[in-house]
């Protein structure tokens, strides 16, 4: 077994009493002493949360043909992006299964910044190297960036105190350059909590001082560090897929309900687009649904979903929603059982708990990006 990697904020987590756990090959805080998952979750919905997401991978695609090369590999149509725009994508296998889900940022016409899941950096980079016509344009720069997400209703006020700049006040999916103590930051209006806020990419050597400055400047704004536990419950309340749960090598973005980010008919298509069109025409074998439990209990990943006593599907993520204060889950079921209001049950330790198909997002976030 290889040693766990540490982010540039490792020492900061220990100072804050972070309860460190192994995640995707990294040693990360799951929650912080004196706070805990629910407190950290609620602070993000009502004030502002700070997340260390430095474990995420960054791939830079650089050169005159960068856009065309990258557009052949990702599902959304990045030819539509202007400088400083971003969009969500699925990276697909030839058969349509998801290699990963990722964000593409257009820094300028010849520099494209791709942010991928920590667990998939090596797989994604190998996939790009294998399928790109010009693999030399792709550079794995994952070690060159720390990343701090600043999320919640007070995110703009907080960032304005520490690193004011052009990203503040923009709609979602933009990226701008800010500065902090002489260093350049890439500040994006993106995130995975459902809240308005920022994802800030910084040189690793200033990550700790930026993190500390944000915590100190935000005391009266209710800032709190947030661990992986609340990061997961926040994204699950929004119904955002998490790779390895809702998306995997055998599951397409259509099944995971991110079809809005899949443009198989864009000029030239992309790796996997033919397979995805065939899949769509043939009918999806399964569909992601939101479930709300009507009985007491907490559904968890891998719990079986039952219909009239027969196993029909599987929970991919589940929790007790800190915002809605009820048990919620995402699950795959056959399309015929995916209509809102369908009555199903979830097997939790041998007991069939009644559940109903509901729409997701499961909650309304506490903040919104300007339109």
């Amino acid at each position: 077994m290889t040693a766990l990697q540490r982010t540039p904020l490792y020492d900061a987590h220990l100072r804050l009493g972070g309860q460190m756990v192994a995640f995707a090959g990294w040693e990360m805080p799951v929650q912080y002493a004196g706070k805990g998952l629910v407190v950290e979750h609620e602070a993000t919905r009502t004030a502002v949360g700070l997340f260390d997401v430095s474990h995420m991978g960054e791939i830079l695609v650089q050169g005159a043909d960068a856009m065309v090369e990258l557009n052949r590999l990702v599902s959304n149509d990045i030819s539509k992006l202007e400088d400083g725009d971003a969009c969500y994508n699925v990276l697909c296998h030839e058969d349509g299964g998801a290699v990963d889900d990722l964000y593409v940022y257009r820094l300028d016409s010849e520099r494209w910044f791709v942010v991928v899941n920590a667990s998939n950096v090596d797989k994604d980079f190998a996939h790009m190297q294998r399928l790109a016509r010009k693999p030399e344009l792709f550079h794995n720069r994952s070690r060159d960036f720390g990343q701090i997400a600043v999320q919640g209703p007070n995110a703009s006020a907080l960032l304005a105190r520490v690193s004011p700049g052009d990203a503040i006040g923009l709609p979602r999916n933009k990226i701008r350059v800010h500065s902090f103590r002489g260093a350049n930051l890439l500040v994006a209006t993106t995130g995975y909590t459902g809240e308005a806020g920022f994802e800030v990419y910084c040189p690793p050597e200033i990550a700790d001082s930026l993190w500390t400055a944000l915590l100190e400047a935000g005391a009266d704004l209710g800032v709190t560090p947030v661990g992986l536990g609340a990061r997961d419950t926040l994204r699950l309340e929004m119904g955002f897929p998490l790779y390895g749960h809702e998306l995997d090598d055998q599951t397409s973005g259509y099944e995971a309900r991110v079809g809005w980010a899949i443009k198989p008919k864009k000029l030239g298509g992309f790796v996997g687009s033919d397979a995805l069109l065939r899949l769509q025409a043939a009918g999806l074998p399964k569909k992601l649904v939101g479930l709300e439990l009507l009985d007491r209990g907490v559904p968890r990943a891998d719990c079986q979903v039952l219909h009239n006593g027969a196993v029909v599907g599987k929970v991919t993520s589940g929790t007790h929603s800190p915002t809605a204060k009820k048990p919620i889950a995402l699950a795959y079921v056959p399309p015929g059982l995916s209509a809102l209001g369908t009555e199903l049950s979830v097997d939790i330790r041998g007991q069939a708990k009644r559940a109903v198909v509901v729409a997701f997002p499961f909650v309304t976030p506490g903040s919104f990006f300007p339109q």
Partner: protein
Amino acid sequence: MNIPANLRYTNDHEWARDEGDGSYTVGITDFAQESLGGIVYVELAAEGTRLKAGDRFGTVESTKSVSELYAPISGVIAARNTDLDGAPDACNTDPYGSAWMVRISAESSGEFEALMDASAYATHTAG
């Protein structure tokens, strides 16, 4: 951390209190509730369930994790705290009081005496 001197403790962070009538009240410790975080669900075995020491008698779930509850002593569940069905958060606020979980009518007193006392449990959790 609160470790009352009048209770006995298990390695798995349950506490037991001698009620003086051959029964023992059981719950989870302050250390356990602090480690679990916000507790959202408690499932307890039914009254009348016969347990051997170390048998599972229930489950405590926080938002993130699931933890099994293990009987500190052998006996029969004489009572279970149904208040926890509607207010599982009492486990976080009052783990030694209103969040008691079950009362076990013991087969003998020997198993209780063999549990850790408060100072031994303090050492156990300091590790």
